[in-house]
């Protein structure tokens, strides 16, 4: 009997803090069981810059700039199953706390209005992605298959969720692993 094909998994942190990725590493020794079943495509762990065809995409963080939009669309196009992982991907999270403010005023408050920065300018290097006027949860930009809440989701919650997905079950994180904080 041949060994089953390894599933390809891509992960990314958009407007997030990498906390969900840290929590992913918190699955501890399960990481060996995971790597028996999956191989990583684009991910901060592989440092690959583009995403090939994948079975599962885990997206941390919301959408706060133009680059996030491109990366998220790439993930949606390449991943059969796309997962919003963590509070920011699901509802915008901390970055979305700027949403009731004007983005131009935010930038000038940070780069021009602070003491000692009176003559500074808002950075406009063409390599910098343009901020969006609002930070969006990823389901407002692409279709999302599953949501894994938490800030971050605990390693245990992530492991249960991924185990379900790998086994072909509908992933379910219920009490007491389901948390919004």
């Amino acid at each position, binding site marked *: 009997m041949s060994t089953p094909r390894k599933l390809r998994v891509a992960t990314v942190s958009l407007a997030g803090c990498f906390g969900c990725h840290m929590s992913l590493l918190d699955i501890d020794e399960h990481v060996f069981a995971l790597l028996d079943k999956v191989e990583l495509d684009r991910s901060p762990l592989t440092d690959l810059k583009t995403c090939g065809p994948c079975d599962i995409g885990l997206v941390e963080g919301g959408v706060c700039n133009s680059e996030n939009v491109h990366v998220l669309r790439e993930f949606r196009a390449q991943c059969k199953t796309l997962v*919003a992982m963590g*509070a920011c991907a*699901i*509802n*915008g*999270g*901390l970055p*979305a*706390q700027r*949403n*009731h403010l004007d983005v131009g005023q935010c930038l000038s408050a940070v780069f021009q209005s602070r003491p000692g920065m009176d003559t500074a300018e808002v950075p406009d290097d063409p390599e910098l992605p343009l901020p969006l006027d*609002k930070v969006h*949860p990823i*389901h*407002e930009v692409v279709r*999302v298959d*599953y*949501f*894994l*809440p938490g*800030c971050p989701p605990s390693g245990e919650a992530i492991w249960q969720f991924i185990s379900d997905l790998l086994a072909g079950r509908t992933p*379910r*994180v*219920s*009490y*007491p692993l*389901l*948390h*919004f*904080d």
Partner: protein
Amino acid sequence: MSQPTFLLDGQSVPFDDGQMILEAARAAGRYIPHLCWHPDFPPHGSCKLCVVKVAGRHVSACATPARAGAEVESDTPEINTERRTLLQMLFVEGNHFCPACEKSGDCQLQAMAYDLEMTTPRFRHFFPDRPVDASHPEVLLDFNRCIYCELCVRASREQDGKAVFALTGRGINKKLAVNAESGRLADTDFAANDKAAHICPVGVILKKRVGFAVPIGERTYDRAPLHEVALPKLEGDT
């Protein structure tokens, strides 16, 4: 004559004449979700989380009298899906940012979302601009989290005899207002030991300087889910 009963999800629930479906169910140790209902106040019927189906019609369990022989559906996939949709609308209408909320773990809205396994807000977020009122020396008001259950309005008016709070505006423009010319809580006779200061099911009315006295992870709904906590203690419970 024996006490009349109705059927809740196929199980018999006794009730007293005039008792509402939700009250009778609670007294029998059966939970029906609710946010705006509180045992100390008459039914309000605004949150609609307690919606149940009786003879094919949707009714609010908190405001519908129990009738002998009625068949009431509550904990069904259909009704729970509708409840989850109501929760999702509540979440996107305000700014419910749990990781930064000191009510997290003690919040009924959050706990009900856990109970009903709401994993996504699903709809487009409104991200409204609602400034906080930190004027009062002892209590902070964070309007971002208001779900308009009117419990503080009712508690202040009916039990504290003060009428500190009111809802103003209609529909999507509805908001919680403070009854002072300045609109600030500091300019009212509101006190930290008022009933209204302790009744908010979410994180709007918060006592200052005790926000994290109980650590995250050891709070009400960390220890037990809402559908257990919300039931009255029965004889023999510890």
